[in-house]
C-alpha cells in the first residue's frame, strides 16, 4: 500500500499507542484510534507490498506467508506457513480466504449449553454491532436472505458460484441440506472504500490465497490501513518487535524492535499486541510478560478442517472463481450429534500446489498413482468443514530450545484432537461423503487437515484463569491490550477473521472509553 505521505512520529515521542502487527486484529483498531485523533504507530514484521505485484502463482506467493520455522508436535501436528500464517502490511489478511461467517451465538455459550468447553465472557449481542460495522466497511458479499439468520443483510450481492459450489448445491438440495452463497469479504462490484479509493470488482481469478491483485478481496492494506493512514497513523514495515521497557508500576513505556538490522525503541503510552496466536504468546513468553495466570500459550486451538474430495466426469476447473462460494450452517448443531458444538461446511476450489500438497500429505499417494492422479486436476472438487475444537490442556504453545535469527526461541505448538473433535470429525466425514456420493463423485477420499491459529492468550473474567478481559486488556500489565485470534477462549465453528476484526473494533472503543 502507498505509505509515501503518511504522518511520521519520532521514536522518542511518547505516542498514544504502538500496535504490533497489522492483520485483522491490529488494523481495525489502528484505524479507529487514529480516527479518534490518537497518535498511533504500527510495527509490522513483514514488508509492504504493492498488490499489483502478486502474480497468480502459488510459489511466488511464499513472500506473503510467515515461513520462519515453527515446530509442530502433538497427535495432529498443524501445518503453518501458507496454511494459516501471513506476513506483510495487512498480515494474514493478505492470504486469507475472505470467508466471513459470523460466530453462532450458541458457540459463545458452549459450556452453558453442553457442559463442555468454555463460555466466552461476552454475548453475541456484544459483537453484533461490530459485525455489522465491519461487514459494511469492508464490503461483504452475501446472499439476500441468510437461511440461518433471518435478520442478517449483506451489503453486496454474492460473488458467482464456482463449479464445486454448483455441484455441492445440487447434491445438498437432494439431501435436504440447506446451502447459501457464502458470505465473502470480496466485493462483487466496484466498491468505494471509505478512507481509500475504489476497489475493483472481483474478477473471479481464484487466487485469493496468493494475494489479491486488484483489491477486490478485503485485506487490511486496502481497507482499514488506508483509513488509519488517512487519519494520521504511521505504519512501519520490516520492524520486528523483540522487547519492551517498563516502569516501576509495570506499565510498558517503550517497545524495542529491529529494523534493517538496527535496534530501535519507540516510546509509547499503550501497546496493542496483535501478532496472532503464535507470535503474540511467543513474544509474551519470551519476555515473561503478562503471564501471572500461567495461561499464556495454553489452550492452543486449530479448527478441525477436514476435506472430502472427489473426481467428476465433467471438467470442473476448480481454479476458476471465488474458491469457497457456498456455505452450509446446517451442521452447527446437527440433530444426531454425539459431540459438543458443530461445524460449518463450504465448497472447495483449490489451486494445484495446495491441492497437490494435500494429496501428497494427507492421501499419501506415491508412485504412478500420484502422477496420474494429479494429471486429472481439472476434474476434482471438494467440500470442507470448519469445526469446533475444545480448549484442552495438552494443546499448548511453548518455547523450544532452538532460536531464530533474532535470538528469540522458536515456538513449539503441540496440538491434537480429543474425543469431541474425533466424533465431530467422523460426523462431518460421513456428511460430506454422503454429499459427494449424491453428487456422483468417484474416487472419494478424505483429507485430514487443521486450520487457523487460535487461543494461547484467552480472554476471561479474571486474572487467575485468563490473560485478558473481554475487551482484550491484560489483567496484569495495565497498558497492554491483545487483539488477535489468541484471545479466543474457544474456537467457535465460524472461521475467525471476521470475529477478530469485530473484537478489534470493540477493543478500540473500550480503550477510548477508558482514557
Amino acid at each position, binding site marked *: 500500500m502507498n505509505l509515501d505521505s503518511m504522518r511520521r512520529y519520532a521514536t522518542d515521542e511518547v505516542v498514544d499507542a504502538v500496535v504490533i502487527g497489522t492483520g485483522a486484529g491490529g488494523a481495525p483498531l489502528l484505524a479507529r484510534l487514529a480516527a479518534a485523533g490518537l497518535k498511533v504507530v504500527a510495527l509490522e514484521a513483514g514488508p509492504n507490498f504493492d*498488490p499489483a*505485484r502478486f*502474480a497468480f*502463482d*502459488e*510459489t511466488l506467493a*511464499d513472500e506473503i*506467508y510467515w*515461513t*520462519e*520455522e*515453527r*515446530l*509442530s*508436535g502433538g497427535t495432529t*501436528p*498443524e*501445518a*503453518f*506457513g*501458507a*496454511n494459516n500464517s501471513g506476513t506483510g502490511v495487512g498480515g494474514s489478511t493478505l492470504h486469507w480466504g475472505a470467508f466471513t461467517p459470523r460466530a453462532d451465538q450458541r458457540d459463545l455459550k458452549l459450556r452453558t449449553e453442553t457442559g463442555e468447553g468454555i463460555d466466552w465472557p461476552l454475548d453475541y449481542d456484544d459483537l453484533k454491532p461490530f459485525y455489522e460495522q465491519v461487514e459494511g466497511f469492508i464490503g461483504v458479499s452475501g446472499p439476500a436472505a441468510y437461511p440461518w439468520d433471518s435478520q442478517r443483510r449483506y451489503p453486496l450481492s454474492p460473488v458467482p*458460484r*464456482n*463449479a464445486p459450489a*454448483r455441484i455441492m448445491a445440487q447434491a445438498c438440495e437432494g439431501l435436504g441440506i440447506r446451502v447459501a452463497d457464502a458470505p465473502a469479504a470480496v466485493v462483487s462490484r466496484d466498491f468505494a472504500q471509505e478512507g481509500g479509493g475504489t476497489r*475493483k470488482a*472481483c*474478477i*473471479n*481469478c481464484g*487466487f485469493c490465497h496468493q494475494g489479491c491483485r*486488484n483489491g477486490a478481496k478485503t485485506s487490511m492494506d486496502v481497507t482499514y490501513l488506508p483509513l488509519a493512514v488517512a487519519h494520521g497513523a504511521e505504519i512501519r514495515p520490516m520492524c520486528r518487535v523483540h522487547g519492551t521497557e517498563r516502569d516501576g508500576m509495570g506499565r510498558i513505556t517503550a517497545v524495542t524492535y529491529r529494523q534493517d538490522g538496527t535496534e530501535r525503541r519507540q516510546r509509547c503510552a499503550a501497546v496493542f499486541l496483535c501478532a496472532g496466536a503464535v507470535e503474540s504468546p511467543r513474544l509474551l513468553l519470551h519476555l515473561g510478560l503478562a503471564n501471572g495466570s500461567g495461561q499464556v500459550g495454553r489452550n492452543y486451538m486449530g479448527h478441525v478442517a477436514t476435506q472430502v474430495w472427489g473426481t*467428476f466426469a*465433467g*471438467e*470442473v476447473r476448480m*481454479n*476458476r*472463481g471465488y474458491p469457497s462460494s457456498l456455505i452450509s450452517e446446517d451442521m452447527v448443531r446437527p440433530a444426531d450429534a454425539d459431540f459438543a458444538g458443530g461445524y460449518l461446511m463450504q465448497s472447495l476450489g483449490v489451486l*494445484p*500446489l495446495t491441492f*497437490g*500438497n494435500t*494429496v*501428497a*500429505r494427507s492421501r*499419501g*499417494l*506415491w*508412485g*504412478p498413482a*500420484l502422477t496420474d492422479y*494429479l*494429471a*486429472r*486436476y*481439472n476434474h476434482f472438487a471438494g467440500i470442507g468443514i470448519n469445526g469446533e475444537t475444545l480448549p484442552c490442556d495438552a494443546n499448548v504453545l511453548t518455547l523450544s530450545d532452538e532460536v531464530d535469527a533474532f535470538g528469540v526461541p522458536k515456538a*513449539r505448538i*503441540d496440538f491434537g484432537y480429543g474425543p469431541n473433535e474425533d466424533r465431530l470429525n467422523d460426523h462431518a466425514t460421513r456428511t460430506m461423503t454422503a454429499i459427494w456420493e449424491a453428487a456422483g463423485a468417484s474416487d472419494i477420499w478424505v483429507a485430514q487437515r487443521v486450520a487457523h491459529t487460535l487461543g494461547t492468550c484467552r480472554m476471561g473474567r479474571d486474572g487467575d484463569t485468563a490473560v485478558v478481559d473481554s475487551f482484550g486488556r491484560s489483567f496484569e500489565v495495565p497498558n497492554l491490550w491483545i487483539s488477535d485470534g489468541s484471545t479466543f477462549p474457544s474456537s467457535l465453528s465460524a472461521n475467525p477473521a471476521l470475529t477478530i476484526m469485530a473484537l478489534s473494533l470493540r477493543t478500540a472503543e473500550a480503550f477510548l472509553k477508558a482514557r
Partner: protein
Amino acid sequence: MSNASASPPPTLFCLHFLGGSAREWEDTKRYLDPHLICIPLDLPGFGDAAHIARTSVDEMADYVVDRIAERGQSRWWIAGHSMGAKIALVIARRAEDGDPKLAGLDGLVLLAGSPPSPEPMSDDKRRDMIAWISADEKTRTLQAGAFIDQNTGAPLNEAARIAAIDDVLRADPKAWTAWLQEGSREDWRRRIGILRTPALVLSGSKDADLGPAAQICLMLPHLANARHVVIEGGSHLLPIECPKAVADLICEMRTLPIAVASDPACVLDSYASLIASHRVNSRLRTALAARASAGSAPYRPCVLDAVEFSILRALIDRVLPQSSDACIDIGARIEVRLSDGSGDGWRFADLPSDGEAYAAALRTLDAAARATHGIGFTALPDETKGALITAVAAGELPTVAGDLDGRQMMKWFEDLRSDAVRIYLAHPAALARLGFSGIGAGGDDVADMPGFSEFRIDSREPWEPIPEVEAGR
C-alpha cells in the same frame, strides 16, 4: 574395433590397482593403439615407483599430476583401475576446478573403481591382506597368487598371471598397508562432489566388492555424465582379464560420445503460447521461464553429499515418476531449497532441521536396503525399491542404529512427498500436463484483467488449455 574420429588421438593416462603397476595395461595399450596414446603410470609405492613413499590419496594424486604436467598434452583422458580410479577422480576434480597443470581433461575411465566413499571391504579381509604382505617370502608368494586368482573371473593365461603376482610382490608393503588402512578409507564424497567430465564406468559382473551394484551406488552418484557398462564374466582385474573388451569400450567413447545430461522437461507448444500471451503477467512469465531452465546445468549438491543426493533422486523417481522424455529434476530443486534454507514455516517437532532430516532419512533408507537386500537403494530393482518405500510410508522401516526410527521416517516421507509435489506443480511442464488455466487470469494491467466468467461444468473457454492426457500427448 570402431573407427576413431578424424581428430588427433587423445592421450590416455592409466593408473593401476592395489598391487598392480603400469604393466597391467600392456595388453589394453596394444588394442588401444593407434586410437589413443596410452601412457600407463606407476603409482608411488608400486611398480618402478615402489621406492617413492607417498601414500595418501592427495600425495598420490600430486605425484600423478606432475607426471601428466610433464607430458604437456593439450587433450587427455585419464583411466583408473580400482585404487587408481580414486586417484583419477581426485585429478578430475582438480582439473574441473581449474588447476592450470591439468588443462585439457576430456574423459574419465573408471574400471572396477574404488569410489570416493570409504571402500566397501570387510575388516577381516583388510586384516588378512595386511598380515600376509609383510610375512615370509613363501607365504607372500602363495598369498599373492591367491589374491590375483580371487580377483579374476576366468583363469588368466600363465604369463599374465605370473606378471600380476610379480607386481604384487614388488610393491612396497608400506604402501600396500597404507592404502588398506587409510587411503581406501579416506572419505572424498564431498570433495569430489559431482564431476561433469564424460565418464565411462566399467564393472565386472563377477566382482565382489566393487562390482556393478557398488558402482551404481557409490561411483555413478559422482558423475553427471556417465555410461556404465557391466562386463559379463569379468571380475576385478578387468584390464588384465579382458583387455580387448576394455579397449573397445574406451574407443567407443570417441565415436559415441557420452551424452551430457540436462533437464529435458519442455513445455508443450500450446501452453508456451499461453504463457507468452497477454493473459499472463510478466512476473509470472519470468518465474515460469526460470523454473523451466533451472535444470539445464548439472547440479552439484551442497547440503547432501553426492551419494545421498543420488539416493534422493532414485527415490523421487519412484515417488513421483515422470516420463523419461519430460522429466523435471525435482531432486536438484529440493537440494537447492535445503541449501538456501528456505522453509515452509514449520516442521515436525519429531524431526531435526530439514537438511539434517533429509540426510539422515536417506542414509536410513540406504542402510535398510543394505540390511534387507545386501545392496544400496539406488541399485535395487524398481519393485524392491517399491517394497521399501511401502514400509517407509507405513512407518514400518526397521530402525537402523543412530538414524531415524520408523515413525520419523514416516513423517519425513510425508515431507518428501509434499516437497516433490510442490516443486513438480510449480513447473510449467507440469501445469501444461494438468491443463491448468489459472495462469491466464490476467496480465500486467491490474485495472483490466479478464479473470473468469464461466463456471459451469464442462464449459472450457476457447483459450483454456487442454490437459496433455486428453490432448493425446
